[in-house]
């Protein structure tokens, strides 16, 4: 019952998001290009290193492309549907959270629904293209296991990625510069576009156990390529549940102690 309610609500928000995108065609084009460039910039660097060294951490060119495209797909989904968590900061400052609190729906759903970026869906199509092309080149087997891991990966990867963003942006409820911290985390994310095993052990450990961004691309790629004995199929949902749970707790605590600005 509640699920159907939120389903209908989500559809209404998507409609607003789509209409907004069509209102500013030039804006949309610029947005897509800048998003593609932003992701590609880091990638070109990796490719340059890989081509000089012949390979990177014994990974082939296609395998690196696979890692990059999967990383980018997740970021695009997060941008399309969960980008408004980056506005928590300004919403608190301007007292906009009040509006969500006087309505009969989850404030979190209202917040992320309030602004969607369908431009990101378009740029995602480009990454899916790169993914298909590099998956073929890297000889990812075409079987049920691959399909299962990919579906699981898209859901759990998005949860981990957006969960981490939500968690750090929710710190704005207590500290003024919470979004700086969240941006720092986003910068750290550059690391996981590389095969993690080229880094020293403590960096690998950091992105596995502390800030589990390794699970938004590296480990799933290992799994797809059959390069690991780790039960990634089980770890993915476990990590996703953990991150989403932590983010939900921090968000709820923040909202509970929320003191809106007086007007």
């Amino acid at each position, binding site marked *: 019952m509640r699920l159907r309610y939120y389903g209908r609500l989500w*559809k209404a928000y998507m409609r*607003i998001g789509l*209409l907004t995108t069509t209102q500013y065609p030039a804006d949309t084009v610029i947005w897509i290009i800048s998003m593609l460039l932003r992701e590609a910039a880091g990638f070109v660097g990796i490719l340059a290193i890989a081509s000089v060294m012949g390979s990177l951490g014994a990974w082939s060119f296609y395998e690196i492309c696979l890692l990059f495209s999967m990383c980018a797909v997740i970021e695009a989904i997060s941008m399309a549907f969960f980008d408004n968590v980056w506005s928590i900061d300004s919403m608190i400052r301007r007292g906009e959270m009040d509006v969500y609190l*006087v309505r009969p729906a989850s404030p979190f759903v209202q917040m992320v629904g309030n602004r969607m970026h369908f431009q990101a869906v378009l740029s995602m199509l480009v990454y899916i293209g790169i993914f298909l092309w590099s998956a073929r080149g890297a000889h990812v087997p075409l079987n049920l296991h691959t399909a299962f891991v990919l579906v699981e990966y898209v859901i759990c990867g998005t949860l981990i990625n957006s969960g981490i963003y939500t968690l750090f942006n929710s710190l704005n409820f207590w500290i003024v510069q919470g979004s700086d911290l969240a941006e720092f985390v986003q910068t750290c994310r550059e690391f996981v576009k590389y095969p993690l095993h080229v880094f020293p052990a403590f960096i690998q450990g950091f992105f596995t156990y502390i800030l589990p961004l390794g699970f938004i691309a590296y480990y799933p790629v290992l799994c797809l390529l059959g390069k690991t004995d780790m039960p990634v199929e089980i770890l993915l949902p476990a990590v996703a549940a953990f991150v989403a749970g932590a983010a939900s707790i921090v968000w709820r605590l923040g909202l509970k102690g929320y*003191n809106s600005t*007086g*007007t």
Partner: protein
Amino acid sequence: MMQIEVNHLVKEYKRKRDPGTLLKALGSMFRPDYEIFRAVDDINLGIEKGEAVGYVGPNGSGKSTTIKMLSGVLTPTAGTIKIDGLEPRKNRMKINKRTGVVFGNRSVLWWDVPVMESYRVLQKLYEIPEKTFRDNLEEFIDLLDMERIIQVPERQLSLGQKMKCNIAAAFLHNPEIVYLDEPTIGLDSESKLKIRRFIQKMNEDRHTTFIVTSHDFQDIESLCQRIILINHGKIVIDDKIGAVRKNFTKKKQITFDLADNPWSKGKEFAIPDVRVLDVGETNLVLEYDVEKTDSMEIMNYVSASSDIQDVSINGQDIESIIREIVKKDNQGEV
């Protein structure tokens, strides 16, 4: 049972004490020095279904804080709020479906899409049946004159049009209680009038309960039967507007039309406690203290020296009454 019941409501904020010197400011980074600020201090209220209440007070008196606690945005530090017997903070979803809020300085509509599209989202949010939605929309469009603006994106609307759309938005789900926080702030008189008429109609036809905060006393006078004055977080007055006017009018103005005006030629006005506000060739405007003198005495005195052609007496308007009460209340505290 009252629809809204508030008992011993308190809201305290922690705020950092001003450290004074830069050196102390650096020190306070490690050992912050907080002081407790009471925005709302032991408020008791009961509001009945269908009442329209004006909630007034100077800036920073605790008006918005009270409204935010009533609507479930803020958690009270102490005391209880019951809306139809339910606590807003604990039954947020349930109560929110029955209440509406208008933030005078904030829009709840989407900037880039036609107003109608925003209403469609609200329809889903509040689960408004299609028939109710259609009927309400039709009535509101008619009452607020919104026909031409409903298909326009909000960014292309004027402030008055935006406010109309936002007010209509708060009523789409047939709320039983509506909180209006400065509903006419910054609007021209035409829009103000339309909005007031709309609110009145909702109150009369649907018995919607209203709590209105406004600095515009015309809003309060035309919309509300009851006025609650809050100052420094405490309720100073809670009474019918008529009673407030009757009990607190201290000064009245009396205007004379005279055939010949000796006071314009330097004659002194001999009754003490009467202030001459304006004096001209044929007119005389006086202000007097109702406790010290009365209009008969003044009229007798004036008619003794001149021919009165016309006379009118005005009581104080509610705004200046409130202003004086606040002033007195502030002095009492010092």
